[in-house]
């Protein structure tokens, strides 16, 4: 107690956030993952201003040309620049990943917190529906929903979001149940706080870290799923570019123009790897038991 008074008033104080950041910085694979994610985000954002031909601009004089100075990654079966389609496809992929996970969290977290907080029959109903949704394999559910909603990128995002939602319900419910047993919940009730304040100020901040980790990993899954749906023709519609639909077209020209399949495949691999490494790193950094 006496030591406290000796600390100068402007001394830097240890903060939780900075501790997490320091751990993240000390983790090379998380940094690599973050760099990959950052790179794809950057090209997706810069897509409109990069000096590239339009992603749908055809050139009948340059059909299925190998990578060259004019077309760094080659051209496809309609003479479109693969690099340009890759860059615009990154926009579709990342948008699909982020938006669908936002949908999943936006619906899933409130439902999960409600189930864990209210318990009783509210919990029973929400949990049974969640289990029923989880019983269907993720991709099958997404394909079924996308087919039901009709093929478009927006509908694919909704389908992926709804399919990923039960994971967030279950996680948010479990975390809420755990936080509810903490001593500080009792002291919150002892000072007469209402449900709203307890949920927003006592539950949400304390269940957020594991949800953040889950969100990062879910974006990776959502990107693969979007590519799968586009591959099947249920996502991004031609001529708008998407890595999945590029792969679908490329499969007919694997021997004549392997670069058409190579680049989208590599891009999907790298961006998913990036999100997974970042998610793993975040999980380690946010783990209070970590060194």
């Amino acid at each position, binding site marked *: 107690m006496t030591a406290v008074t000796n600390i100068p008033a402007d001394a830097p104080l240890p903060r939780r956030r900075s501790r997490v950041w320091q751990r993240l910085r000390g983790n090379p694979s998380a940094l690599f993952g973050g760099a990959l994610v950052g790179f794809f985000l950057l090209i997706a954002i810069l897509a409109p201003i990069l000096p590239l031909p339009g992603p749908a601009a055809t050139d009948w004089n340059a059909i299925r040309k190998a990578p060259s100075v004019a077309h760094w990654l080659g051209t496809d079966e309609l003479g479109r620049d693969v690099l340009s389609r890759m860059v615009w496809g990154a926009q579709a992929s990342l948008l699909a990943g982020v938006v669908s996970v936002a949908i999943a969290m936006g619906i899933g977290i409130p439902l999960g917190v409600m189930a864990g907080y209210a318990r009783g029959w509210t919990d029973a109903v929400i949990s049974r529906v969640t289990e029923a949704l989880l019983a269907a394999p993720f991709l099958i559910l997404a394909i079924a929903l996308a087919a039901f909603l009709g093929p478009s990128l927006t509908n694919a995002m909704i389908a992926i979001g709804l399919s990923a939602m039960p994971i967030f319900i279950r996680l948010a419910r479990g975390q809420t149940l755990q936080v509810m047993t903490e001593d*500080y919940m*009792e002291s919150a009730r*002892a*000072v*007469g*706080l209402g449900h709203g304040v307890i949920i927003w*100020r006592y539950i949400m*901040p*304390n269940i957020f870290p594991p949800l953040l980790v889950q969100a990062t990993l879910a974006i990776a899954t959502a990107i693969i799923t979007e590519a799968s749906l586009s591959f099947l023709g249920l996502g991004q519609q031609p001529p708008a570019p998407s890595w999945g639909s590029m792969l679908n077209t490329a499969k007919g020209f694997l021997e004549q123009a392997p670069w058409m399949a190579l680049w989208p495949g590599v891009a999907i691999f790298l961006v998913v790897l990036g999100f997974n490494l970042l998610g793993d790193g975040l999980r380690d950094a946010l783990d209070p038991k970590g060194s």
Partner: protein
Amino acid sequence: MGERLPEPHPLLQVTDLSIRIGSVGENLVDGVSLRMNAGETLCIVGESGCGKSLTALALMGLLPTPPLRLMSGRAEFGGQDLFSLSSQDLNHIRGGEMAMIFQEPMTSLNPALTIGEQIAESVRRHRGGTRTEALDRALEMLRRVRIPAPEKRLGEYPHQMSGGMRQRAMIAMALANDPRLLIADEPTTALDVTVQQQVLDLIRALQAETGAGLVLITHDLGVVAEMADQVAVMYAGRIVESGPVAAIFDDPQHPYTIGLMSSMPALGARSGRLVTIPGIVPPANAMPKGCRFAARCPFAMPDCAKAPPLADLGGGHRVACWNAPLEQAFPAMAVAG
């Protein structure tokens, strides 16, 4: 039982409080009655599991139900029966007129909010006003609980503070809305001995300042001697002896109270083993029918198969024992004493 005219307007009057776990078995808290006046300190003493914390939680409306069940009882606080209030009215009283300090300062604060925000949240709940006003009040409270550099502490998170500091912050939060009754459940048990004394001194000083009543739950007879006006000794869910602190310490009548007193280590007396009470507290699922202490009592007799009433020996000193007063049952003790 001696008839006494009830004193006017007790701050808190609990009558026949019983709590049970599940629907079968014996009551964990059985027929507990308490009474205290404004500004007084009532200490509830007893060993772990005797029901003292359950009693406190019931008063705050914080009993986890289920599995626990309130079987009977009234708790009048400021003319209202706490047990029949709507949850909204109860939330209005909790943290406002009635506040609680918990045993574990290390885990009883929300790790995601700064100390200032946590106190301010409670202030705004009960007094309204802006965030700035509430934070001003929080700062004032941190000053009053004598936290060094309160301006800086206001913006700190609980993990940046020591146990004693956090308990001070808890006290600041509990007293922020000028409660008339403060319930402290073993407020010093988790703290270092030196810090314990500081926290007790602080509670006493603030109580004198605000005139709040204090229900202090403890197993430490030293704390009782120092703080209490009234004492209630609990054993296995029942009050076995209650009364003014002087009566309990000078003339303990229940064999359990006597056992507690003699098992307290005294400074200087180094010879011999510490006195213990033989046996263990009966488990909750196997409570004996009559007097719950009989199996461990050196004075047990056949009558003890019936539960003794809490009989008044005069001056508010009440004992639940067939042998009380002991001097009459065992004249030799009066001579020896």
